């Protein structure tokens, strides 16, 4: 079961048992009462937070999704798509290294978090997972009804075990490791576009 000699396991667990401080009880959940909502709508809070994280947010009506996604993808780009809103220009490879020069990944998110502008992307697919970080640009489609207020609500909705990999993605990759200067586009994508599909058409409610 474990590759190390069992003695290390037993030694550590034994040392932990000997060291255990007096038990502290698990705190009762009290979040619903303790949480305070901001005056802004969920949609506005999400948009502001995602923008602050460096994402470009495009609010659209259902009928506009394909057109806006196509605009975000651009022309002459190599595209891997995991949504019906866009088509792939390449086939999904067995070896993720083949995606080294991928231009765009298009996918969907099942959940967005208003307080921090992150969207949840989960997959057990090797190519999808690699493309999320290898692509120069990432376009994610998320529905307004998929937004929650905060991470507590997010974890109530998602099952982290349903896929081998899942990530909250907040904006494109970034770094401030040189003199605290923010540089967008570190090792992962340089751009993140969020296509936010409005629950009701903003023009014709």
């Amino acid at each position: 079961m474990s590759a190390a000699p069992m003695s290390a396991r037993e030694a550590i667990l034994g040392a932990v048992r000997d060291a255990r401080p007096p038990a502290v009880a698990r705190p009762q959940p009290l979040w619903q009462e303790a949480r305070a909502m901001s005056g802004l709508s969920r949609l506005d809070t999400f948009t502001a937070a995602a923008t602050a994280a460096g994402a470009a947010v495009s609010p659209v009506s259902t009928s506009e999704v394909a057109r806006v996604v196509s605009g975000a993808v651009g022309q002459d780009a190599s595209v891997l798509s995991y949504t019906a809103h866009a088509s792939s220009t390449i086939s999904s490879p067995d070896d993720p290294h083949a995606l080294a020069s991928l231009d765009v990944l298009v996918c969907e998110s099942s959940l967005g978090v208003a307080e921090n502008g992150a969207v949840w992307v989960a997959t057990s697919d090797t190519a999808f997972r690699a493309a999320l970080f290898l692509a120069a640009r990432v376009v994610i489609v998320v529905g307004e009804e998929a937004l929650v207020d905060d991470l507590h609500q997010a974890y109530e909705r998602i099952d982290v075990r349903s896929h081998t990999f899942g990530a909250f993605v907040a904006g494109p990759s970034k770094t401030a490791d040189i003199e605290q200067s923010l540089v967008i586009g570190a090792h992962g994508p340089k751009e993140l576009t969020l296509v936010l599909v409005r629950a009701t058409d903003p023009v014709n409610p």
Partner: protein
Amino acid sequence: MTQRAFELPVLPHEPVDHAKAAAAFNADVARTEWHDEALWFVRVKRDRAAASVPEWEALRARASAIKEHALTHLDEYLVQFEDNAVRNGMQVHWARDADEHNRIVHGILERAGSRRLVKSKSMLTEECGLNPYLEARGIEVVDTDLGERIVQLRREGPSHIVLPAIHLRKEEVGETFHEHLGTPAGLADPTALARAAREHLRERFLAADATLTGMNFAVAETGGFVVCTNEGNADLGMALAPVHIASVGIEKIIPRAEDLGVFLRLLARSGTGQAVTAYSSHVHGPRAGQELHVVLVDNGRTRQLAREEFWTSLKCIRCGACMNTCPIYRRSGGHSYGSTVPGPIGSVLTPGLDLERYASLPFASTLCGSCTAVCPVKIDLDAQLFRWRQRVVEGGHASMAKATAMKASVRLFDHPRLFRFAGAVARLGLRILPAPLARLAGGPWARTRDLPSPPAQSFRAWYRKNRPGGPR
């Protein structure tokens, strides 16, 4: 042992003299001031982020309580994590100390035939000295966090757990990249330098045959773990390499997935002032065809857990907020601590590993308590620093000068006549001695301070004169 930035007087097998190393750092006044202001700026961003969450204090209290619960049931949660991780297809290893950890990691690489390892940030592997261990055995080790890559190329260690190259100016990074990555001489633009590093490291990611990451949180209930980065470097490594090793200190276990909501809300806001890092990646099994190994490491943690006065320091989630706010850290630089984890939390954790070597660290503090005020898991850092000072003196590890001075002040305060005499001498000295001489007599304390002008009389004399019938 890696070489330090500007040859601070910190040697591998001698006790760390923090004050002496800090003085060497301070010799570069411009760098010291820049360092101080850069970290204070991060602290200000942290304040803004914390203030944006109305329930911030309730969140801290809950995070602290969850960690205390987890640590006081750690054996149960470790076993639960192991069971679930194995069920998820991971291979779980246990390491009592740094050497065992390094041997396990090397063994995994050797069995897989891996020669090129890309690493994301892991203070645990710094603590274990993994890089030199693997390099001595012919493995190419590339740190991929930009800050860590910079210090690796310079053969230094990180000076901050979240901002590894915060002690360096962009011109110095430019010189390093010119030498190692072939960027044009004089190039010092952060964006251009980061782009060059991106190209250079992209090749390494694609060529790697193994990756090593740390963990921010290991979840007992689900047998998975979470890695938080802004750069996406951990994710590229994990998504591409056929072998993934995740090393973690045993204190990083939390009970449930829902607890992640509490900790992820606190972590980035406390560390960098962001609402959340760009990527909070949850791993619950290997990709198809990938080997995924977890190494659970003790290396002194169970000893710290057994210390009644210090076990709560293991609640630490490594956000770095205590460093950014600490007036000593900001003005002395991370390397002056001679310890993988510097700053207030480092000065509480590291003496537990080797009290003699790190005896000066608990004194690298004004005990102002700012660290305690910003800690997202409410570790009483200033109180623990004060308690370590007592253990240092009891253990006979205080420097001769400090011990003598302490004993002298005890004698002084125990003997009123002596105290009065000393006061008279000090007033006289301040009056008649030239300032430089008086400053010399004042010892290290007086070196950087303006000496007071002496009062005409002592308080005792004043009181006797002005309150003749007053209580004594």
